């Protein structure tokens, strides 16, 4: 017993919190990567997450491709779609106020959501977890469904890989340099517009991976993205978009905070992240990991 709550229930909620946190981390990471270079808040991030889940579902139903293929296919498809959008439309908005990027991607999100709803209906469709990941293990203090453990592990691996890509590799160094001063980097003969396109594709691909991971846990539904994106925005505000690691850590922390709230005061679990956001804004407006004042 912890604070009068059975340990099973307590750990169960922490686990759910960690899983939600995994998605928050993956999505806020993608938002931070896109924002870092393009200075665009990608409102369509939720829609791209939803598209990722649909790619998994349709690959299975139409092509018979299983989960593991989907995990590779979805980020490629959604990333390519993102690259196309960036090249043809989004890139024309960079020289304007950042708000136009937000408005454009908002319109995009509405269009994608509406289109999927038109074709597939608003109700969710189940997607079975792969056979290798079904079942559960008894950890002694709690029972852990294997698929949920996999989600936490996979999201950790992806997050750390992206972090390493940006902070530790030469390509990452170029990216960071382009964030600081695109003109200078371009004058070194580096194709900055191409870099921007690739970055947007990377962000969209990350959202798609999160979507595939989410498909067996939540139902695959056209509305799944818009429900989560606003929470992720709050996560991003709390973390501050200045740092990649900040986005990841804040994602997990707020997921756990949400899980804990479900244990102690379930009525507030929907709003706890927003409340934390408000408190952080009052105490530290730049966010926990933010640099700008």
């Amino acid at each position, binding site marked *: 017993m912890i604070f009068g709550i059975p340990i099973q229930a307590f750990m169960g909620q922490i686990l759910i919190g960690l899983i939600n946190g995994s998605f928050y981390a993956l999505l806020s990471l993608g938002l931070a990567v896109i924002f870092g270079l393009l200075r665009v808040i990608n409102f369509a991030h939720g829609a791209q997450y939803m598209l990722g889940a649909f790619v998994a579902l349709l690959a299975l139903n139409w092509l018979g491709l299983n989960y593991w293929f989907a995990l590779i296919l979805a980020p490629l498809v959604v990333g390519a779609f993102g690259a196309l959008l960036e090249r043809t439309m989004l890139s024309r908005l960079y020289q304007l106020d*950042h708000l136009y990027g937000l*408005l454009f991607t908002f319109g995009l999100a*509405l269009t994608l959501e509406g289109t999927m709803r038109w074709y597939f209906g608003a109700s969710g469709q189940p997607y079975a977890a792969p056979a290798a990941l079904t079942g559960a293990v008894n950890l002694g203090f709690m029972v852990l469904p294997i698929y949920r453990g996999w989600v936490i592990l996979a999201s950790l691996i992806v997050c750390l890989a992206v972090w390493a890509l940006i902070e530790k590799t030469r390509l990452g160094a170029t990216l960071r340099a382009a964030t600081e001063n695109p003109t200078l980097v371009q004058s070194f003969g580096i194709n900055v517009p191409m870099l921007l396109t690739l970055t947007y594709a990377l962000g969209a691909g990350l959202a798609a991976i999160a979507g595939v991971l989410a498909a067996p846990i939540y139902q695959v539904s056209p509305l799944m993205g818009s429900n989560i994106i606003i929470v992720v925005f709050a996560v991003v505000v709390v973390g501050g978009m200045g740092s990649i690691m900040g986005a990841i850590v804040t994602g997990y922390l707020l997921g756990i905070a949400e899980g804990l709230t479900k244990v102690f005061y379930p009525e507030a679990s929907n709003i706890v992240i927003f409340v934390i956001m408000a408190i952080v804004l009052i105490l530290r407006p730049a966010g926990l990991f933010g640099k700008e004042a």
Partner: protein
Amino acid sequence: MARTSEISTSEPGSVPTMGRGVQLLLLALGALVLIGAPFVVYPVFAMTMLCFALFAAAFNLLLGYTGLLSFGHAAFFGGAAYFTAHAAKVWGWNPEFALALGVLGATALGVVIGAIAIRRQGIYFAMITLALAQMFFFFCLQVPFTHGEDGIQAVPRGHLFGFIDLNDTMTMYFFVLAVFVLGLVLIWRFVNSPFGMILKAIRENEPRAISLGYATAQYKLGAFVMSAALAGMAGGLKALVMQFATLTDVDWHMSGQVVLMTLIGGIGTLLGPVLGAGIVIALQNLLATSAFPVTIITGLVFMVCVMLFRRGLIGELAHSRLGRALGLRPPG
């Protein structure tokens, strides 16, 4: 800060002398349309348009004249709708008091949300208002007085001042029209006041406004609260017109819709949002009976507006030769 001024380019245009007369003529024409509307179209439809036009105009007060993009205005609109509906139905208040309560509630919400949100600028401001409005949405979902998914149904319109029966559709229309005109006059007065001038200065260049000694945070909060209160007036009015208040009114799609209305009509113009609201509502009405989802159209219109005509209809007109001949001033 060339980027901020991009939101609405101000160009000092000289008003031709013939413009004044044409403007008066246009004004008279507008008045004629508003008075004649319920005799031509379905009155409830015309009233809905007026409510949303007021909502968009209130929103534009913030985006167009202060340069702050709020993605959470549904909270004020929908919140006021709930307050007004509850006061009119459960407490049996007269419509004017119920409406006043809606405005008061929206004002209070505006103070709280505004005080938190103005701590950040630009896109952060947009995300924060969106998140806080979503928090209010969940609040409305759970508290008992909103009746969750059902909403507050069958709200009585009651008797204005105790003796004017608003159940008569025509009477109701002219009540709505009066509130709408009052709202627009308030906005016009506000924008052209010294306070409004300072807001425009903040929009164009906030650091300079600060260096001139203005406490910009207070001015921004003032504009935010004013905008929230007027959005509340629109929301309360809507609850009386449609006779219900539901979660749709506080949903984030509603916040997006009001952004679209303003964008289509023209950010930073007085009449743009009114026109934009008319177009969006008419479009929804048109598509309401078909199976085709409105969100696809809304989304596409959003993208086209952002890509191709950011000034909006009124803004483009004001910049055109015809607009200059009519004596329309480009927004600023």
